[in-house]
């Protein structure tokens, strides 16, 4: 899976939790889940659980700590997929 495919898959995961559609439509690696997409912090855990299911990986606590923006999420998923 290349980075564009990964971001596309991630984008479908975060869609149901997003309330700012402008920021969602213009999503980049710099997009912040809470500040830009207005995602409720309690829903961050849903995104993490959805990522675990969709990519068949396990995200541990130190990784979860950084899961605040698209860039970190992509990095974490890429690292996990590479070590499979």
């Amino acid at each position, binding site marked *: 899976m290349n980075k564009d495919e990964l971001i596309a898959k991630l984008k479908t995961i975060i869609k149901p939790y997003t309330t700012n559609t402008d920021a969602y439509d213009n999503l980049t690696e710099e997009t912040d889940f809470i500040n830009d997409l207005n995602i409720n*912090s*309690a*829903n961050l855990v849903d995104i993490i*659980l959805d990522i675990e299911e969709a990519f068949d990986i396990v995200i541990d*606590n130190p990784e*979860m700590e950084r899961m605040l923006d698209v860039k970190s999420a992509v990095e974490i998923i890429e690292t996990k997929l590479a070590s499979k």
Partner: protein
Amino acid sequence: MIGNDIIDLQQSRLESNWQRKGFIEKLFTVEEQLLIKNNEQPEIMVWLLWSMKEAAYKIYNRETKIRAFIPQKLICNIRQQNDLFVSGNVTCDKNIYHTRAIVTKNFIHTIAVINENELNNVIEIERKEVVKDSNGIPFLSSSFNWQKPVSISHHGQFEKIVCLSS
């Protein structure tokens, strides 16, 4: 310093499924998971603990400038529960934050402070009294108290804006 968090329970039922596999395990410590499991109203305990973490994190984030998703590092301890309040504290690293929560049928509102006695000095203010600095950090706009920190929390149909009166 002050932090606060409001949870609209009706809204949380629409937004979150706390019974989803992995949800509780990711957000709460083993001790907190037991509090939830053994409570007569596990849903209320989930959101009470969550609002304690959120209120405490607001102070932690403001003072340390550290931004991270660290629910399990914000460790809740419930000390006393009566008809009016649930009081307790949240520790994070070496910091301790004292909390007081109001639990009603429709919402849970938690306030966190650094010195326990400040819990008696909390006042609610209106949005028009709030100004934000260049980083978006809210303060009370009164000219005498322009550096007085304010905490804003909004969820569903509820909004609470609080600061310390002295």
